[in-house]
Every structure is written in structure tokens, then in C-alpha cells.
């Protein structure tokens, strides 16, 4: 049995990819899906809220054994909230080795041992570090692990610049024949003024729909303090409803887009247009 859906969540470091991914995983599990979440970030905190704590990583196992066998992989796959499986690729010690290559090696190893089939995963979510700073970090896209990609952004200009960089990698790889597409933008709001308008304008600029605006909420932080997802800690909250709605949209989505590449000036102009419309010239922010 192959997973019905393989979804990759990309975004700038610190934007909230892991929070969004974990809550989507938790919500999908409640919809009857067997979810496996794969953290592809050396920061290794992707599945922490699903599993209640930071877990040992794939690359720690590699460090310990050098050659990783299938049985070793089982030791770093953990069962979290509502039966969601979680695995962290991890990374080398800071300042050493090559994390990009490590992430790709981990994904290849999972593939080689048919881990998704073995665990009966119907949905696999890759939570990928979005700072595509080198070929290594674009490798999950190139290798076909990110055919259906969601990009987490917020209304901050640098986040949109970074998202644009990810899109550049997508377009370039698509042009070389890689099966990849962006399915939507997720606005994980930070409280920036006119944030929804800015992100919507950005979506129009690049030709990809914004599928959800996730409001900033205290319950997210409170849940994380408890080592839990919002879905688990505050199932009756409005925030949990937002994550469930997002999970449903992803599950039902059938569209993928090849984005238009925007220049930095285009992005800046869009933001200025939005803020000028709302605030007038006097308060136009200067992003340069």
C-alpha cells in the first residue's frame, strides 16, 4: 500500500512550519488517516509536540552505527498523538558535515526500506527547512518528495522574499522535468498590519492561492509549553478548528500550480500598494 498523499510543507526557518505540520497531522489522524510526519530540518523539533518531547533522530542513529539497517530505522520512528508516526531526520553537529545531504540521505533510506508502506501511512507530511540555501536543501524537491508543496508564510517582507526563493527552486526544477508543484500558501499570521491583504496580494502575484490564514493565538504557545499540538491540548478551541479546516482542504485539494517568479521589487511594490491603500503615503514602510 502506498500513501495516498505525500505533502511537503516548506517555509522560512522559524515561520511555524512544524507547528502547522504537527497540527495538520493531528487533525488528519482524527479524520481517519494514518499519518507519518517526517521532520527534515536539522533543528529536529518537528514532531516534538506530536510526541510530547524531542526525540532521537535518524542522523544520531547514523552517528552511532554508521550503517543504518531497517531495524535501526524502527528505533527512531515514534508513535505520537492519536497514532501519528513521527520521525526526525536531524542533522550533523552544528558547524560540521552537510545537513542538506543528510536530509536527502534520510529520505532515500526511508524510501529504500519502504517505510511508509511498512507503517501503513496513508498521508505522509514532510516538514522541510525552507531556506533553500544550497543544492542539498532543494534535493527533497528534486528527488520527488515534494510533488505537492505548501508554503508557510506570514506578512513579513523577508518571509515573502524567502518564499520567493523557494518558488525559484520549484520553477527551475520544474523546467528541468521534475514533478513538482505548489498546492497553496498557508498564512501563519504574525500580527503584521494588513497581513491577510499582503499575503493575498503575494499569492496573486505568484499565481498560487492562499488556502488558509491561521490567526495568531495564545493557545498555540500554551499547547507547545505542554508539549502538545493545539488539536490535542485545546481540541475545542477556534484555533483547533482552523487547523482542522486546513487539514480538510489539504486532503481534498487536487490542484497544483507552477508559480510565477516575482522579483524582489515586485514583492516590495505589492506590499507598498497594500499599505498605501490602507494607510496612505505618510506611513508607507520602507523595506530597502
Amino acid at each position, binding site marked *: 500500500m502506498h500513501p495516498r498523499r505525500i505533502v511537503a510543507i516548506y517555509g522560512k526557518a522559524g515561520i511555524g512550519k512544524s507547528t502547522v505540520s504537527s497540527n495538520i497531522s493531528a487533525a488528519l489522524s482524527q479524520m481517519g488517516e494514518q499519518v507519518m510526519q517526517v521532520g527534515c530540518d536539522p533543528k529536529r523539533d518537528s514532531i516534538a509536540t506530536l510526541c510530547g518531547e524531542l526525540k532521537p533522530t535518524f542522523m544520531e542513529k547514523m552517528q552511532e552505527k554508521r550503517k543504518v539497517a531497517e531495524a535501526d530505522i524502527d528505533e527512531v520512528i515514534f508513535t505520537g498523538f492519536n497514532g501519528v508516526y513521527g520521525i526526525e531526520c536531524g542533522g550533523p553537529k552544528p558547524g*560540521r558535515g552537510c545537513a542538506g545531504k543528510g536530509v536527502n540521505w534520510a529520505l532515500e533510506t526511508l524510501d529504500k526500506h519502504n517505510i511508509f508502506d511498512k507503517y501503513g501511512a496513508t498521508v505522509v507530511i514532510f516538514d522541510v527547512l525552507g531556506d533553500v540555501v544550497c543544492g542539498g536543501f532543494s534535493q527533497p524537491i528534486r528527488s520527488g518528495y515534494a510533488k505537492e508543496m505548501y508554503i508557510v508564510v506570514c506578512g513579513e517582507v523577508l518571509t515573502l522574499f524567502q518564499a520567493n526563493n523557494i518558488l525559484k527552486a520549484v520553477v527551475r526544477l520544474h523546467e528541468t522535468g521534475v514533478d513538482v508543484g505548489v498546492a497553496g500558501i498557508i498564512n501563519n499570521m504574525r500580527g503584521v498590519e494588513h497581513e491577510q491583504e499582503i499575503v493575498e496580494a503575494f499569492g496573486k502575484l505568484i499565481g498560487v492561492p492562499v488556502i488558509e490564514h491561521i490567526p495568531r493565538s495564545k493557545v498555540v504557545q500554551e499547547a507547545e509549553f505542554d508539549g502538545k499540538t493545539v488539536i490535542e491540548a485545546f481540541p475545542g478551541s477556534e484555533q483547533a478548528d482552523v487547523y482542522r479546516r486546513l487539514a480538510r482542504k489539504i486532503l481534498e485539494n487536487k490542484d497544483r500550480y507552477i508559480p510565477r517568479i516575482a522579483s524582489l521589487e515586485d514583492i516590495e511594490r505589492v506590499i507598498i500598494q497594500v499599505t498605501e491603500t490602507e494607510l496612505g503615503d505618510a506611513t508607507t514602510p520602507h523595506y530597502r
Partner: protein
Amino acid sequence: MELKRLSEIYAITPDPEAGAECDQKYPGYYTHWCRFMVTLPHIPLDCIAIVHGPQGCVGNQKDFLGTYWCQYHGSSFFYAPTTNMDQTDAILGAEDKLRTVIKEVDELYKPRMIFILVTCPAGIIQEPVDDVARDMEDKVQAERIIVIKCEGYTSYAAGLYNIYEGRLLANELLQNPEKKIPRSVNILGISKETHYPSDYLEDSLELERLLNKLGITVNSVLYQTATVDSWTRATEAEFNTMVCPQRAMPLATDMFDRWGIPHGQRFNPLGVTPITNWIMEVAEFFEIEEQAEELVKEEYTRIKEDWEEARRLVDGKIVLIDGGDPMTAVGRGIAWGRMCADLGMRPILFNLPPIEIKAKIHHTIFAIQEGFDPEVVYHDYAYHRRFSPMRVIEELDLNPEDIGLYMGDVYPTAVAKEWQAPVFDPANFPRIVTTSHCNKNRGSTGRRSGFTGAGRTARDIINAVHMAERKSVPTLYGRIGGL
């Protein structure tokens, strides 16, 4: 295919640093001269090189160097322990492994110094090799730990590599002289041999023999297979002589700039006139010209009979010199050509890619400066593509009767009885095999330097001409050494 002068090819060939233009015209050129490959054999003999990279780097280079370099006379084995980086190390880093290997090597071999040669994988992930070396220096018995970053992906034009290595080793190992040793010289640019007695006579030993007869001592022979002491005492010499200018010139220039040590201009002393010029240059510096002239006379008398007989046999004839034999070697081809010109022959060099002529700048410039500007077959060879001597003869419309000598490896071009192709029959041409594989010729110096080398070459030419007159089927024995 056409004939051009060496100087003309040098002038019209793009600079090896021209990047894409060179890659397109001479594919394979850059990959051949891997920085690691040319660094490994130059580590001092009493030191050890740890290769921080995969075993493959060492294996491939040992194979290449063992085949093409070491089979002259010298060290037949480059031992280089490696950290054996694998994929796991490329992901996680191999700093700890490097520390372990440094300790092990230090305890096992007690080297004077430890060199760390960084190859591609370690370089790409920016292993903290300098930090490790600094940290480990206090923890080992070796005097120093020296890092050489020689990743192959930073390959450069062959003509520049010696500048890199020579200057790097010079910077690390040369010292301010405590004293000057009167009447002493260094021999710079010796490679592919060991400066100690073996079954065969080395070039440097032949040159040392001649210099000693003039009362001059050889202070250091640099730089392949030198020891640390050879380096540290090198600045105590009064004068630097050169053999291979490509290797010697950067070092000689540095030593002149930093310590004012003068150097000669004569190089690769193959043949009677070149070795005479080489000796007289040294003699002029020490103002012992008369003594040197006597030595030259005495040495020439020793080989005169063979030399003049060889000249009688080949004077006015063409000598075809295969420059790609066994790998492109501009200096070797030029030196052989100049020796043949000394015998009255018209040298034609072929299988020398123009890019190599341009890149081996010192060889080319020194030859032209000396007035030796031979004809070279001009063609945009793909790097390492070789033409058979028969094709050269046909395309240049040369008369086979005018070919007095062929210098090159007969194996790739010998007649094939079954298929009758290629058609070059070495039995019909006097030939001397010049490859490193077959150059272990008793009674000769490694590359035929000095009077001993000239005499032996003359004898080989005489034998080769007589053998060709037999028009017989070549035997394995006949193929080797022109006998």
C-alpha cells in the same frame, strides 16, 4: 594537421585560465591535473601525508603515479594513509576520524612532520582541518602538522600547478640560512626519482658526479622525494641549478626574491651541448671555466666514439618525437628534440596538445629563449587523443626514407598481424622507447641527463638504426630500449 613552430603555437593558444574556451577545445585537460595528484608525490620523504578524503582519491592517484611517475627509477610506492571518508562522514563530518588518524600515524610512523592533504569531499563540506591541525600539534611528536588544501575540483592549468606546490612547500619549509656553504648548489626541479643509489643511475646522481669533479657540492635536491632537511638547508647554497624548469623556476624565483640566491637558465641537460652549457653556467658563477672546459673535454672523450657514430647515422634525418608518451610531457619532448638536434637531426614533435604547450610555460619559454624552437604538429587534439606516427607521416606528406629515428612507445602503433592495422611497423624504423615504463636502462641515467645519458642514447640510436636495417619482425626484446 600542420607543422608550426613551438613559439607560434604558444602565441596562438588561449590562456589555460581561459576557462570555458579551453574546456571546449581541450576537453579533459582540467580533470587530468588534479591538485591532489600533483601534491601527493611532493611531500618530503621523512614526513607522512594523511589524505583527508575517501580511499578512492589515494587509490586512483597511487595507480596513476605508480604507473606514470614511479616507474622511472625512484620511489615505486606512495604510501598515504587516509581517513577514508564515506557518505556518513560527508553528512556528519569526519573531524574525529582525522584526529584519530593523526594520532595513529604519529605513533606508528613517527614522521618528522605530518601533512594533511584535503581532497574534494572534505573540502566541499569545509572540514575544520586547520583547527584540528592547530589543536593536535601539541598532542603529537611530529614537529609540525601542515595542511595543504588540494581539492581536485579546484583543478588548474598544469603549467601553474608547480607554482602552487613549489611556493606552498617553499613557504612552509624554507628557512633563513644560518650560514652559506661555499661552492655549493641546489639542483631544483628533480622529480620522479630518489636521490640515492638504486639499481639504476639517477639524473641527479649523474649531475652530482659532474659537479663534484669540479669541487662543487650538491646541497639539496628539490623537490620530489626530498627530506625536510633538504628543504631547510636549501637556502645555504650559493647557486640554484635547474633540471625541469616547470618545477624549478617558481622555487628558484622565490629563493632569489627572498634570499638573493641566483639561479641558472639552463635546463634538462640531455645531449652533449645542453650538458656542456649546464656545466659551464655553473662554472661561470664560480669562475672555474677552465676547469669546467677540461671536465667537458674529458667526459666527451668518454662517449665520443658512440656520439659521433650516432651523428653519422642520423645527421640530416627527421626524428619523430611522440610527445604524448606516455602522457603529455612538453619538457621531455623538448629535451629529446634538443638532443636530436644536437645530433644534426630535424626534430618534429607530435601528440603535444597546444594547451599543454601553453600551460607548461617554463618549458616552452626556456626552450625558445635558448634558441630551440622546434616544429610541432599542430592540431586541436582532444586532451590525450593521440595520432599514430604513420598518420603524421601521411598527413604531413613526409618521405618515410627521411625518418631517421622515432622516439616513442611502439606498443600502440606496432603492426598487428591479424588485422593489419595500424600499419606502422616499428621494425622498419629506428626507434628508441622513451616511455617511463621502459626507461629502466642499465648504464643510463633516468631521463638520459648528463654525459652518461647522452652516451647511452647514442649507443641506443646506433643499435636502433642497425636493427631497423634488419627489417625483421620486432621481438619484445627488440621493442625495449631500442635494442
